[in-house]
C-alpha cells in the first residue's frame, strides 16, 4: 500500500483528520479521572438535589413527582422567610464588624513597636480554634447567672444581660463570637495589603499637612480597598453558611430567633426527614450564595475600573 510513502507532514495530517472522528483524542485518558471525580462529587449531587427538590419525598414513604410545589411552599412558609431574614442580618453584621475591627487591627499592627510579632501571634489565635469547641466555651460565658460576661458587666455597674437567651440579643451575641473568631483573618489579609502600599503618597501627604484621619481616609483606605473586598467576600461566604457556632450555642433558639436558612435546612432534612422540601431549600440557598457572590464580584470589578478611570 501507500502507507510507507505517506511520510510527508501534509499527508499525515490529511490521514489523521478522518480518524479523529472515530477515535477519541489521545489526551482523553488523562482527563477522564478528573472528569469522573467532578461528575461524581459535584455535578451528580447537584443534579440529584434539583431532582429531589421536584419530588415529595419523606423518608419512609414513597416518592412522587410534584413539580415546583416545594418551591411554592417556600413562599408561604413563615419559618423559611424568617430564616432568610435572620441569615441576612447575621451575615451583614458578621461581615461588617470583622472588616472594621480587622482593618483597625491591621493599621495598628502595621506600626513598628516592640513585641509586635508576639502580639500579632496572640491576636490570630482565635482563628486557630475549632468552632464547636469555642462555641461551647462561649455558651458558658454567656450564661446569665454563672457566665463571666455578666460578671464583667457587673464590675462596671451594668445590669446582667440575657445574651443568647433572649430573642432580641441572640443574633448580636452570636455575631460577637463570629467577630471574635474571624477578625484576625481580615487583619491578616489587610496587613498584606498595607505592606504593598508605596510610601511616597504618605510623604507628600505629610508635607501637605494631612491629618491622620485624612491620611487613612484618602490614601490608605482606597489603596487597601481591593484587599477589603477579598476579605469581605471570604467573610460573606463563610457567614452565610455559618452553622457550627449557631448550632452548638443556640440550635436556632430561643424559639426560632436565631434560626438561619442553614439551621432550618438541617431540621427539615434530618429531623423532619422531608428530603424533597429540604432539597428545595438547599437549591434556593445555593442560588442566594451565588447571587451574593456575583454582586460582590461585580462591585469589585466596577470599583477597579472607576479607580483606573479617575486616576487614583
Amino acid at each position: 500500500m501507500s502507507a510507507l510513502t505517506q511520510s510527508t507532514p501534509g499527508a499525515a495530517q490529511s490521514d489523521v483528520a478522518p480518524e479523529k472522528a472515530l477515535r477519541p483524542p489521545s489526551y482523553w485518558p488523562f482527563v477522564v479521572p478528573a472528569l469522573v471525580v467532578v461528575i461524581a462529587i459535584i455535578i451528580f449531587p447537584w443534579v440529584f438535589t434539583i431532582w429531589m427538590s421536584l419530588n415529595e419525598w419523606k423518608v419512609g414513604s414513597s416518592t412522587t413527582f410534584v413539580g415546583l410545589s416545594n418551591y411554592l411552599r417556600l413562599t408561604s412558609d413563615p419559618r423559611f422567610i424568617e430564616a432568610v431574614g435572620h441569615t441576612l442580618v447575621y451575615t451583614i453584621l458578621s461581615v461588617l464588624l470583622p472588616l472594621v475591627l480587622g482593618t483597625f487591627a491591621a493599621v495598628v499592627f502595621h506600626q513598628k513597636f516592640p513585641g509586635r510579632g508576639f502580639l500579632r501571634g496572640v491576636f490570630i489565635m482565635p482563628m486557630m480554634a475549632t468552632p464547636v469547641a469555642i462555641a461551647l466555651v462561649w455558651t458558658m460565658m454567656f450564661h446569665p447567672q454563672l457566665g463571666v460576661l455578666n460578671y464583667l458587666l457587673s464590675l462596671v455597674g451594668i445590669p446582667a444581660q440575657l445574651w443568647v437567651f433572649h430573642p432580641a440579643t441572640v443574633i448580636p451575641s452570636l455575631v460577637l463570637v463570629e467577630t471574635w473568631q474571624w477578625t484576625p483573618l481580615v487583619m491578616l489579609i489587610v496587613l498584606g495589603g498595607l505592606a504593598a502600599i508605596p510610601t511616597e503618597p504618605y510623604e507628600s501627604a505629610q508635607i501637605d499637612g494631612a491629618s491622620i484621619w485624612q491620611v487613612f481616609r484618602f490614601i490608605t483606605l482606597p489603596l487597601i480597598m481591593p484587599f477589603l473586598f477579598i476579605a469581605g467576600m471570604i467573610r460573606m461566604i463563610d457567614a452565610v453558611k455559618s452553622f457550627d457556632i449557631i448550632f452548638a450555642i443556640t440550635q436556632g433558639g430561643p424559639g426560632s430567633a436565631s434560626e438561619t436558612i442553614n439551621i432550618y435546612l438541617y431540621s427539615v432534612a434530618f429531623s423532619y426527614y422531608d428530603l424533597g422540601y429540604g432539597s428545595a431549600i438547599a437549591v434556593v440557598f445555593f442560588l442566594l450564595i451565588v447571587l451574593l457572590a456575583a454582586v460582590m464580584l461585580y462591585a469589585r470589578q466596577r470599583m477597579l475600573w472607576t479607580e483606573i478611570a479617575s486616576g487614583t
Partner: protein
Amino acid sequence: MVNHKISRRTLLTGTAAAGALGLTGMPARAEVNWKKYAGTKLEVILAKGPRGDNLQKYVKEFTELTGIQVEAEQIPEQQQRQKVVIEFTSGRPSFDVVHLSYHVQKRQFEKAGWLADLTPFMKDPALTAPDLVESDFSAAGLQYARNDKGQMLSLPWSVDYFILYYNKELFEKKGVAVPKTLDEMAAAAEKLTDTKEGIYGFVGRGLRNANMAMWSNFFLNYGGEFLDAKGNILTDGPEAIAATKLYQTLLTKSAPPGVAGFNWMESMASFTQGRSAMWIDGVGWAPPLEDPAASRVVGKVGYTVVPAGPKGQYSSTYGDGIGVAAASKNKEAAYLLCQWVVSKTQGARLLQAGGGVPFRNSILGDAEVQKGVKTKEWLQSVIDSGKISKLGLPVVIPVAEFRDIVGAAVTATLSGADPAAELKKANDQYRPILERSEKA
C-alpha cells in the same frame, strides 16, 4: 465488687425460681429452648443512656444463657434516631435489634413497616418464657407497642413519667406546703422566689422542642386533647391557651433568668445547686440529685406527682421500646434478646439503679424489687404517676415538627408574646404539615 457479684447471682437464681414456679402452674407449656440459636451474632443499636448501659453491662449473662453473641453500640440519642432512620430507609439496616423512642418514632416506624411483628413469637412457648404476657405491660406500654391491628411490633422497655421534684429545705424556710394543684404551684413558686438571694421558685424546660414534654403536663391537666376524632390538631384551643399562660407566668415570674434556653440539663443544674425550689421533669433524675459528688441537695429532695389542674390530674408519659428489624435474618435470636432486655432481672436492675422504670407491672409491683430501691419517696411518686399516666405527645408522624413549631410558640411567650396569638399562628403553620403527612 464481691458484694455486687453475689447480689447478681441471687437475682439470677431468684428469677430462675420464679420461672420454674410459673412452669409448674402451667403444665401444658413447653420450656423455652434458650440455646436453640447459639452461635448467632446480633447487632444492636442503642441510644446512649442508662438503658443502654444496663444492657451492655450485663449482656454477657445473655450470651451465657443462649450462646448468642451480641455486638451493641450506644450513640447519642439525636444521632441514633437519625442513623436508624437512614439505615432503615436503605433497606439493609446493619442492626438486628433497635432501641426506639415511642413518643417520637412510633407512627413513623409503623407506617414504614420497619419492625418485625413479635406477636407470633410471644405466642410460641418454645420462644417465650411463661411470665412474659402482653397483659403484664402497663396500658401506656401497650398503647405504644401495638399497632392499630393489635400486633406487638416491639417490647416496651422503659417508661418515663413526668414528676415534680421539690427542695424540702427551701419549702420549710418559706413555710410553703407541697402544692396539690397547678394554681397552688404557681402561688408557691412566687412565694419561694427570692431574687436577691438568687433563689427561684420554679425551673423547667424553656428551650423550644424540649419544652413540649413539660408543657403537655399543664395542657393535659387543663383538659386538653392533642387530636380530635378526625385527627385534627387541637393545640390552639382554650386548654392550650390556659396551659401556656401558666407556663408563661411560672417561667417569667418565678424562674431563673435565661430559662428560655434551658433544657433538662440546665434545669437540673439549677435544681442541684439549690437555686430552684421546684422542677418538673422525667423520673430518671433521682440518681444525679442524690449523688453527693454532683448535687448540693442530697437528702433534701421531695418527689411527688405533678399537681392537678382544673380538669384532671395526669402525668405526661413517654417511653422507649426494643424491637427487631423486619429486615433482620436472625429474628428469633433477636427476639430472645429483646425478651431478656425486658426480663424481671434486667428490669429490676434498671429500676434499682434509677435509670428507668419498667413497663411491666409484675416488676414494679414486686415487693422484693421495691426493697432494692434506695429512695422510697421517688418509687412512690413513680407508682402514683403510673396510675395517672397519659401520653404526652400526639401520636403522629411529624412529631419533630410539632415539637419545634408549637414549642417555638410557647418559648416566644417567655419574651412577652401573647399565648393565644402565638398558638394560633403555630397551629396554622402545623396543620398543613400534619395533613400532608397523613395523606402520604
